[in-house]
Structures are given as C-alpha cells and as structure tokens.
C-alpha cells in the first residue's frame, strides 16, 4: 500500500495521467481509498497480533502467523504488553476494522473502485452470446 501511495504522489507514472477529454484523474480519491485499505490491513494485523500475544502469554497454543508479515512483527512488539493492553488493542482493532470495512463498502460506489464490488456480477450477468 505504501508503494502504491508513493507511486501516486511521488513518481507519478505517465499512464496514471488522465487526458482532459476523459475527465479528471481522481488522484485524491485513489490515495484516500488506498489509505482506507491500509487501515483495514493494519487493524486486522493488530487484531491478530494482540490475540496471538495474549495466547502466548497464557501458555496456550498460538495461532501461527506468517513470518515477516505485519501481524508477526506486531506480535513480537506486543510480547511484553500487559493483558489489559492486549485486550484494549484487540477490542479497538476490531472496532476500527469493522467501521473501516463498512465505510469502504459504502464509499466505493462513489469512487474509482466501484468495479471491485460490481465485477463479479458484471461477468455473471454479461451476455453469453456476445460477439456471435
């Protein structure tokens, strides 16, 4: 996500530019949507890491996290955190994830990523005999 945002704001590949006859480029919308997706991923990672760290502290079997993934790294950070802190992180991360998910779901129809929600249905309901 960071690379995608940097490419939008710093490097600006020529093919990202939209000719005037096709309307606006919607760069701000693109960055906003990338930020929402990043928040979703971070919240999910905090949720999983707090859970795994708490399980490790309690001597329970810990859900395996992919090595070098964000949850895996956050789990190491949380290793010495108190259960009270882990509980708050777990709860807060879930709440943030839920709010971000539904906001993203409802915002996408108004932005440049509407196709993410419609593509499956577009393909399913497409004309079967197109081109014949």
């Amino acid at each position, binding site marked *: 996500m960071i690379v995608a945002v940097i490419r939008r704001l710093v490097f600006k590949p020529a093919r990202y530019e939209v000719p005037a006859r096709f309307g606006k480029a919607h760069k701000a919308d693109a960055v906003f949507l990338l930020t929402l*997706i990043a928040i*979703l*991923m971070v919240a*999910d990672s905090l*949720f999983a890491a707090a*859970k795994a760290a*708490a*399980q490790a*502290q*309690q001597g*329970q*079997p*810990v*859900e395996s996290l992919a090595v070098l993934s964000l949850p895996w790294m956050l789990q190491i950070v949380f290793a010495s955190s*108190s*259960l*009270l802190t*882990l*509980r708050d992180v*777990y*709860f807060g991360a*879930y*709440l943030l*994830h*839920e*709010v971000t*998910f*539904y906001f993203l*779901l*409802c915002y996408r*129809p108004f932005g440049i990523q509407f196709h*993410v929600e419609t*593509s*499956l249905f577009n*393909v*399913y*309901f*497409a*004309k*079967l005999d197109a081109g014949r």
Partner: protein
Amino acid sequence: VVGSYFPAQLTDWLTSGKTLFLTIHVLGVACFGYIVARRLVPLLRAERDPRFDRPLARLAKVGKFWLGQWKHPRYKTAGTLHILIFAGFILLATRAFTVLIVGVSDNFCDAGPFGGSRPRSTTSSLTTPPQLCSSA
C-alpha cells in the same frame, strides 16, 4: 489481578462490545443496501433482457474471467500486476469477512481457511484470551 476489572462471565474479549458491533453491522448493511437499491433503479427501469438463464454457463464464465483473470495476461506488466492485486483482494476480503463474523458469533472460529470448528469457551474471562480452534 487484572481479571478483577472485568466480569467473570465474559465469554471473550469482544463480548462487551457485541451490541455495538451488531449495531454497526446492521447500519453498514442497511446503508450499503440503500446505495445498491438506488443504483439498481436504472437497470430495473430499462428494457428487459433475460440474464438469469443458463446459470452453470454463467458460473463458468465467472470462474474463467473473474476468478481466473483469463484476459489479463494479454498485458504482461499491467496484467500480471492486476492478477497479483486481485489475489490480494480475494485474501483481504476473505479475511475481512471472517473477522467481521468473529465479533458477533459465539460459535465461529477464525482459525483461517484451514482451521477447525470447535466452539469457543463459554467460561473464559480477561485472563483467558480467545480460544484457538482445533480439529481435535
């Protein structure tokens, strides 16, 4: 000591927010439903065209062109990137839906696609973190 801050009947750390989570679920789904309904109005008022026939053929198209991203290798760089991003989207969406269900279901385990189906403990408290699923 820490557990004394919280009622012992907590089934897990998300229980205290279950009503809040359910409310957000309902509001989110209602908002999305309203947006979709408004978007469907032009389709419903347009000339009728049967698009519910031959479901298996349509599912095959979905498998090939949507899930399989059949057309994208035509563009080596952009197509390959799109396939990778699409795969990431599928993973993120699957995980996001899983996490959503965890907050409001007592019997759902978020052990991932390969996890088991054992229900969560009903007697845990703050000192007992959410239970892992197990196939045992």
